[in-house]
């Protein structure tokens, strides 16, 4: 009790110094929490974009399909599977596709691409394809052989709306198949590599051309929540044991890697911030101990044992941190709250970001778990930093200290 009293009152003995450390803690905590939230936002945005626009949560294929992406490896009774999956209450949207690796050509050039034969209505629910259209109109059910390609491909192939592009690919029997498709719309996403390599046609136009009428070789599943991923994947594996069922991390391991690298990078940042904070605390508390050499010597002379001296310094540091924490937390929460609504705009670097599949506007977000980790990190830093000055205090000789 007396230790707490002395430690808490000692904080205000050197107001300037205490305010400096309180500001350092506040700033460190604010920077740490905000950095974590920002990084989180960047990663979440990339993953959410990938899931909602490109991969979906889960994809089902023929077990041989992903080896060479051959059209002959379609899903037997794929449409029945699709119907069954669509009835699951955990599923937000699902759609069947015919996905083929092929080539697009115009009079000006050609490019290797993935031809996505999609079900227009289902695909709209699944990936909001029409939302990415910047020119032209979404598929018209009454028309055939329409194609939607990206702005980048359009420029590369010097094409325009209503012009024709030729798609060429191998059909089910390995023969070359090709067809002319009229450009009905141009799309643009935040992911440049994706735009460079994906075109969309109606499934009904491509399945017959590929020799697999009414068949599908890919089912994409979007869940109501990412938390349901493992459970849903297991359930689907039980239902369709002969089908390859992969989640987004398995389909695009580089995305899962992004999360793990992101976590590590974030902890390196946190480490640097905590190290700076720690040095600040050590420096300030060391000054406090050296300035109070005589007083600490007197306390030892009077009979305050080493543990109590140690605890007094640790408590003093802890109270200083405690004073800085609420300010830092408040600042961080306010900053995150505002930027979560407005976003942080890095439009001037949009080209660079989109080449890695990122949008140039980020929305910081923070989980309760991460918030807790941050607070624990600060508290640990405070305690660890308090050890050095406290040890210094313990090394003092009372008789020598009293002379100062």
């Amino acid at each position, binding site marked *: 009790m007396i230790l707490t*009293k002395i430690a808490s009152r000692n904080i205000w*003995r050197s107001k300037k110094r205490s305010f400096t450390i309180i500001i350092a803690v506040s700033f460190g905590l604010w920077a740490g929490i905000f950095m974590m939230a920002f990084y989180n936002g960047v990663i979440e945005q990339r993953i959410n974009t990938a899931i909602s626009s490109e991969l979906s949560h889960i994809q089902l294929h023929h077990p041989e399909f992903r080896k060479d992406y051959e059209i002959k490896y379609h899903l037997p009774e794929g449409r029945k599977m699709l119907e069954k999956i669509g009835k699951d209450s955990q599923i937000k949207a699902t759609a069947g596709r015919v996905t083929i690796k092929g080539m697009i050509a115009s009079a000006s050039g050609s490019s290797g691409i993935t031809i996505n034969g999609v079900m227009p209505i289902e695909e709209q629910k699944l990936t909001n394809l029409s939302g990415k259209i910047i020119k032209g109109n979404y598929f018209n059910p009454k028309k055939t052989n329409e194609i939607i390609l990206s702005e980048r491909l359009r420029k590369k192939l010097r094409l325009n709306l209503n012009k024709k592009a030729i798609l060429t690919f191998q059909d089910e029997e390995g023969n070359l198949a090709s067809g002319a498709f009229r450009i009905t719309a141009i799309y643009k996403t935040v992911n440049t590599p994706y735009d460079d390599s994906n075109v969309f046609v109606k499934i009904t136009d491509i399945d017959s051309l590929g020799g697999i009428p009414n068949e599908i070789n890919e089912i994409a599943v979007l869940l109501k929540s990412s938390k349901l991923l493992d459970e849903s994947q297991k359930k689907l594996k039980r239902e369709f044991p002969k089908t390859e069922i992969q989640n987004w991390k398995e389909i695009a391991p580089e995305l899962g890697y992004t999360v793990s690298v992101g976590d590590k990078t974030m902890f390196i940042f946190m480490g640097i911030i905590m190290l700076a904070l720690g040095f600040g605390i050590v420096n300030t508390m060391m000054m406090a101990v050296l300035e109070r050499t*005589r007083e600490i010597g007197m306390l030892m*002379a*009077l*009979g305050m*044992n080493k543990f109590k001296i140690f605890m007094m310094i640790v408590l003093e540091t802890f109270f200083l941190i405690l004073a800085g924490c609420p300010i830092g937390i408040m600042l961080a929460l306010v900053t995150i709250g505002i930027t979560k609504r407005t976003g942080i705009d890095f439009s001037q670097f949009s080209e660079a970001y989109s080449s890695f599949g990122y949008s140039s506007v980020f929305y910081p977000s923070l989980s309760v778990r991460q918030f807790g980790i941050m607070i624990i990190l600060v508290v640990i830093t405070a305690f660890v930093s308090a050890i050095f000055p406290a040890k210094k205090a313990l090394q003092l000789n009372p*008789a020598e200290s009293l002379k100062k």
Partner: protein
Amino acid sequence: MQETVIDAHNLSKIYDEKTIPVYALNKVHLHISRGEFTAIKGPSGSGKTTLLNMIGGLDIPSEGFVEINGTNITELEGNALIDFRLNNIGFVFQSYNLIPVLTAKENIEFIMLLQKRPKKETEQRVLELLKQIGLEDKINKRPRELSGGQQQRVAVARALAPKPQFILADEPTANLDSVSAENLLDMMLKLNQEENMTFVFSTHDQRVINRARRVITLEDGKIVADSAPTSVVHKETAIK
């Protein structure tokens, strides 16, 4: 026969032992009995503070040992020594050395709190001491709000509060004006008589020397004179 509280045997403190040895204390023998009011005088550098530090367990002798009530404190180390000081020795320092963030009352009760004495006993003792030192109205004042004399009275009360075996006071009047010094001496003499508390001072101050019942004179680390315990006015006896 009076009970011996402090028994210092052959105490020496030697600095730079390996090069040119300097004797801060040189083979000092000292016995102090309960209830004594003893002043240790001598010029600067004569070893007064060193002797007090040895007796108080704040410094380790190069030779010899100190017994307090039969306990050889020279053999005690670390927390055992700190605990011994806490429970047996009261200190009063030249520069008061109160804890600046605590009030007068909190400073007085500090040692008793460290000793984990019952709250009621501590409260009673603190109030009693505050009355004895005449600072009941300053109970909640911090040291910076008290005069030098008042601070030293609080320091004496702090040392007295847990009723230690004896009180060591290193030049307690050095920073006080004459009125405050006289008041402090009156108070300490009164406590010495009323509570039979043993006081050992180091001092230059003639006022303290005049009122001590025993005066020990140190020169170059050696006791050169030790007056027999007398009443207030002493008479020095040269040590051959």
